[in-house]
């Protein structure tokens, strides 16, 4: 079975941690993405996933700052047409984040 390579980055208020996993095993744990690339040269690619955890995100939402619009693509019509993406977001947050919304036909059969 192929080895699954994942990078986990946690950008906190004071420290940043970057970790490379091969399956469940921690290959390297350092304090920046650059340091991780440097330390593990060659071993990072091909990468399966990057997981980012950061209080920047929480802060951006709470403070409504540094937010970028995103598009929402929902694959599921003809189901759920009456409730659009963002329908239950707080109005001011949705106004800053909601980009274009696409509802496309899907296979709603579960």
């Amino acid at each position, binding site marked *: 079975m192929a080895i699954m390579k994942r990078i986990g980055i946690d950008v906190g208020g004071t420290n940043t941690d970057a970790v490379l996993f091969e399956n469940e095993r921690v290959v390297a744990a350092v304090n920046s993405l650059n340091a991780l690339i440097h330390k593990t040269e060659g071993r990072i690619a091909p990468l399966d996933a990057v997981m980012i955890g950061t209080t920047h995100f929480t802060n951006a939402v709470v403070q409504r700052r540094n937010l970028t619009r995103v598009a929402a693509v929902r694959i*599921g019509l*003809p*189901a*759920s*047409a*009456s*409730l659009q993406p963002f*329908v*239950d977001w707080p109005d001011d947050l949705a106004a800053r984040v909601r980009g274009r919304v696409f509802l496309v036909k899907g296979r*709603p*059969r*579960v």
Partner: protein
Amino acid sequence: MAIGAWILGAGGGGSPYHSFLNIRELYEQGRRVMLMDPSALNDDDLVAVVSNMGAPLVGQERLCDPAIAVKPVRAMEAHLGRAFRAVMSLEIGGGNAIQPLLVAALTDLPVVDADTMGRAYPEAQMTSFAIGGLRPYPLTLSDIRDNEVIVSRAASWKWMERISRQVCTEVGSIAATCKAPRTGKEVKEWGILHTVTKAIALGGAVPDARRRHADPVAAVLELERGRLLFRGRVADVDRRTTEGFLRGSARVEGLDGDRTLEFRLEFQNEFAVGFYDGKPRVTVPDLICVLDTASGEAIGTETLRYGQRVTVVALPAPDMQRTAKGLEHVGPRAFGYDLDYVSPFEP
């Protein structure tokens, strides 16, 4: 109303959240819903009994849609060759409390202040109309595509349940239905009356108590003349989906004075039996509700989780369900328990 309906769901009925979002959207579009007292119905008025049928879990992905809710009502009118005077809910517990409001907002029919369960139950033969021996057919059913089914006759309520459940499963385990139409006379005689206003009152009392920094659980008990059965923390939940039901049990460990004792709940979509210290303390048809101790809001059988601080309360069942005939339909034996009805309320 959504908060109240979720409490009256007694753990089941499906969360009213998506239905609530739908009705809020419709109100923002300028649609309005009128509530009608059952006494305002003429004896020969025709009333549509609506529900969203199927597995609440599927409803979390295939969101309820007002336009689909209207379809079986129009199909029933076409089948009967007669127009409805009003619309009412099959069950006031959970999301189906709001289903007639969605239909009403799009059709301008009024919503009758009544339902057929006074809570939530999983099956067709558990309605007050079934207890009253009223005719179980016809039924119309619509799905999200363009499928429409009419069950024009069924030999009994149980047969209607079996046939319509089969169709519902085939179209994806969720469908909008219009149950056997009722006359105004039948609704007044056999409906469980004023349950919409009950859900609204309950849903108002909980946030109101929170605003006053009062105990929201106490507000529920006071309004519904309920009993507090147990207060504690969820220690264990065992849940499995079988034959279209969410079955399982949960164990609540005591806090405060009850630290060494435990309360065990068994559920089939809704909470069916509660055991205190190993002995049955409460059974259906009484409403066994698990409330979040802090917020006073209901916790459903599908959202119960380890570690939640909960208060188990019992609310009295509608009188009709406590009769011998009623218990045949909705007592513990109707749910497969070899138990007699146990109630913390006086007979």
